[in-house]
């Protein structure tokens, strides 16, 4: 029988059985501190290897922004026994898919392969964890610096609204806070990054005791354990990893923050962020449901009210950032309908937030949100890569991969009263950061908009 969680179930899979669904999990640590998570499932001859390093842009020095992400690129530039870009070639030749990604508080690297290719994926990951520095050269660094600058132009500078995802954290976290600065980094800092910086960053953070290695899918348990020991066992534990700077912020902003950006965009767009409880807490699940009630799919409040009812918006969503330290953010993201001014947009969006803040949510709204989240969760488990990533996430943030299996239960346990309480505490005018994009054309004809440019604090 393939996935463990269906063992013993009858043909009638009841709603209760969703609560009982379990990703199989076995965890242990190597003596060097590497946290290993194994999740066996022989449904298809596919295996996912997923490695999370507990380092992200939050760990960067203020004068070296963009470094964690540049470093992710460097990790594909070879190691002692792997040539530059050979990692990609070897995995693709094996019939696998791969990538890496950098986030505020973690960096991950992952491959999905035919299951008979597990060994090469583990070997590649171990070679770069243990022996990346011997392959480092100035030419490689220069090339990847230029590639990253082009990534920045492509995804930020030459994209309408492209700066939102660096402006919003900058607005929500104070100067000097680890989440304040840009993940992609500034062009200046990227230009200044040296080989010494890369070496130091690698030695400090890319160590087995700062990583979680998850294997999910079709593998033979004994063989996987043996390969992990052989490849990762000899890699030395790290030392002198500096603690993160203080992440604590107040639970609410204490006021409404505002930033108005005039940009080459066609329609006004408003993002509102509220500080909410960090990922994994009871409050997080309430905030996640609040976001879904507000802006997940067609039946959500913003879609029904702003897009369909009032026709103020052409698009409206809400989501959480899922940050596990300091503060999470609940973000409402609304693009105006043509011919709707930024002022109309702002008033309408804030009215919806006021309403939820004041009156809370209904049981039916929460039931709808929960049902959508549950189906999405169960559906996502079909992918070995997705299972592995979930397990790595909980192992990295909480040291316990089995918590990945508690998510449906925790959504179930979160009531409409909990969501209403969260809205009462966190969605009010004292906890909103507004980022407003104004089309250059509107700004030019509306002196009211132009005089508001720049960051203003206060309502």
């Amino acid at each position, binding site marked *: 029988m393939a996935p463990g969680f269906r063992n013993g179930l009858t043909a009638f899979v009841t709603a209760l059985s969703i609560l009982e669904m379990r990703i199989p999990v076995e965890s242990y640590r190597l003596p060097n501190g590497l946290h290993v998570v194994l999740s066996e499932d022989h449904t298809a001859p596919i295996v996912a290897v997923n490695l999370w390093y507990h380092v992200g842009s939050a760990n960067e020095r203020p004068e070296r922004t963009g470094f964690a992400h540049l470093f992710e690129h460097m990790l594909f530039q070879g190691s002692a026994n792997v040539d530059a870009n050979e990692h990609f070639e070897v995995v*693709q030749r094996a019939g696998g898919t791969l990538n890496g990604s950098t986030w505020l508080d973690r960096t991950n690297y992952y491959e999905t392969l035919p299951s*008979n290719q597990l060994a090469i994926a583990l070997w590649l990951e171990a070679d770069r964890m243990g022996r990346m520095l011997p392959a480092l050269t100035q030419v490689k660094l220069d090339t*990847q610096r230029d590639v990253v600058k082009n990534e920045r132009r492509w995804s930020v500078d030459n994209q309408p609204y492209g700066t939102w995802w660096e402006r919003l954290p900058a607005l929500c976290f104070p100067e000097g806070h680890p989440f304040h600065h840009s993940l992609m980094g500034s062009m200046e800092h990227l230009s200044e990054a040296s080989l010494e910086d890369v070496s130091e960053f690698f030695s400090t953070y890319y160590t087995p005791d700062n990583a979680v290695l998850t294997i999910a899918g079709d593998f033979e348990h004994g063989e996987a354990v043996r390969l992990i020991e052989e490849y990762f066992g000899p890699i030395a534990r790290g030392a002198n990893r500096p603690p993160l700077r203080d992440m604590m912020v107040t639970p609410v902003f204490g006021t409404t923050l505002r930033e108005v950006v005039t940009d080459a965009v066609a329609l006004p767009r408003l993002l509102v962020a509220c500080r909410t409880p960090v990922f994994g807490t009871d409050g997080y699940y309430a905030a996640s449901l609040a976001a879904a009630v507000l802006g997940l799919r067609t039946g959500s409040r913003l879609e029904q009210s702003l897009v369909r009812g009032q026709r103020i918006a052409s698009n409206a969503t809400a989501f959480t950032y899922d940050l596990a330290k300091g503060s999470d953010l609940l973000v409402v993201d609304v693009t105006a309908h043509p011919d709707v001014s930024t002022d109309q947009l702002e008033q309408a969006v804030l009215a919806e937030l006021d309403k939820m803040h004041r009156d809370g949510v209904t049981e039916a709204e929460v039931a709808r949100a929960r049902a959508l989240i549950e189906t999405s969760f169960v559906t996502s488990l079909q992918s070995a890569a997705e299972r592995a990533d979930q397990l790595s996430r909980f192992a990295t943030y909480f040291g316990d991969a089995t918590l990945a299996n508690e998510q449906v239960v925790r959504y179930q346990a979160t009531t409409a009263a909990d969501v209403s309480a969260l809205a009462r505490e966190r969605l009010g005018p004292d906890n909103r950061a507004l980022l407003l994009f104004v089309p250059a054309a509107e700004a030019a004809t509306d002196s009211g908009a132009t005089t508001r440019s720049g960051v203003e604090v206060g309502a």
Partner: protein
Amino acid sequence: MSIVETTVAGGIADDAPPAPPRPGASAPRPYHFPAFETRILANGLRVIVSPVPAYPVVTMLAVVEAGATRDPRDAEGLAQMTTRALAEGTRTMNALQLAERLETLGTTLDTGADWDSAIVQLTSLATRVEDAFAVLAEVLRFPAFPESELERLRAERLADLAQLRAEPRGLADVFFSRLLYHAESRFARLAGGDEASTQRTTRDRVVAYHGEFYRPNSTALMIVGDISVDEAVRHASRYLGDWAGTAPDVTEPLDVPRFTEPRVHIIHKADAPQSELRVGHVAVPRLHEDYFPLVVMNAILGGLFSSRLNLNLREVHAYTYGAHSAFDWRRAASPFEVSTAVETAVSADALREIQLEFARIRESEVSEAELSLATDYLVGVFPIRFETTAEVAGGLANVEIFRLPTNYFDNYRERVRAVTAADVLRVAQRHLDPTRLQVVVVGNAEAIREPLAALGLGPVTVYDPADVDVPIASSSSSIS
């Protein structure tokens, strides 16, 4: 390699443990594309069922012969408008009730239309499959198309078009598609319609379009997941068995190119820090004897990370974050295109490299290493493409849309393995044609126009992003 340069790493590299030898692969476990059965109901509806019981979910995907190539000449966008409006209410539920019904079941309806077909899809937990099926059937058969919702959808389409003007990637795709095909071809106009044609996608037109094309004989329904063939067919018979009517046969659109000579088209975007590039021409239809060699050829040229184009433009020259090539497969002759975004200053250099790679793949056989990388990848990744019920349903839908043989997936890996370096060279020479390359660039014309003209890739024309009807080489801005 590069050991000399480890001095920069100080003593750290000395601590590195010795490497165990690089391992090979173990014996592969067999994989078969999920088995499926096809049942044809008395009304002509094709029901394709693949029981995949690993997870308690079921995907239902209806493919209807109602794609954008069926749009009337003056109402382009009608196919897409109809699919969007399907979810806006039925004879028993208004738009809100329909959304609430589906979402309380934990599912949502995804609808859309590409050139060849319209798609209506949902994935639900297995316990709720019959309820979800009933809603899907009602949406297909009895949409209400309320006027007020259609009015909103038309306004949203206009908003999308306004947004498109400011979005370099979408702008490049749209201009490339429009400039590639003959001005009279359906492909030369936006799949979703422009401002004028959108205004003509009225309720009467949508109702008539649905009535004509959404019929059981023009529909195939994939049902994939934790469900038996019998149960799936029972639901299909109950909810769709008395669906009546016959859709007309499909006629394929004109698919000849607009230009027989190579040309450069610049869509001017002042202050753009990058140029979005699209380079290619009309190639072959999806159902073609050279399909497998073409897929392998594309993987080597620009389909893989380690492809010639990406290694050249990204890893050697650092012009870009990535460079790719692809066929945009259709039933008619399909575009082949190279796409990338490069820093403005190197636009001409990047284009020269693309042109060189385009020529090089036609000059001599690819190496054995390049060939095996492509074929090993395509063969090995095959099971990974079909991990989820939605992916299996999508694969089966392609068999229906492109009228592929029913054993297509059983033979796929064998066909890929059979491709030789000589095949790759032959199809590159036969189907890639540098003498009619169309180059579309969204970027700062003031900075790139002269360097691009100097490349000699053909006459250069500059357009405004708002140009709706693309002029054929407007004389005022054309330089040769």
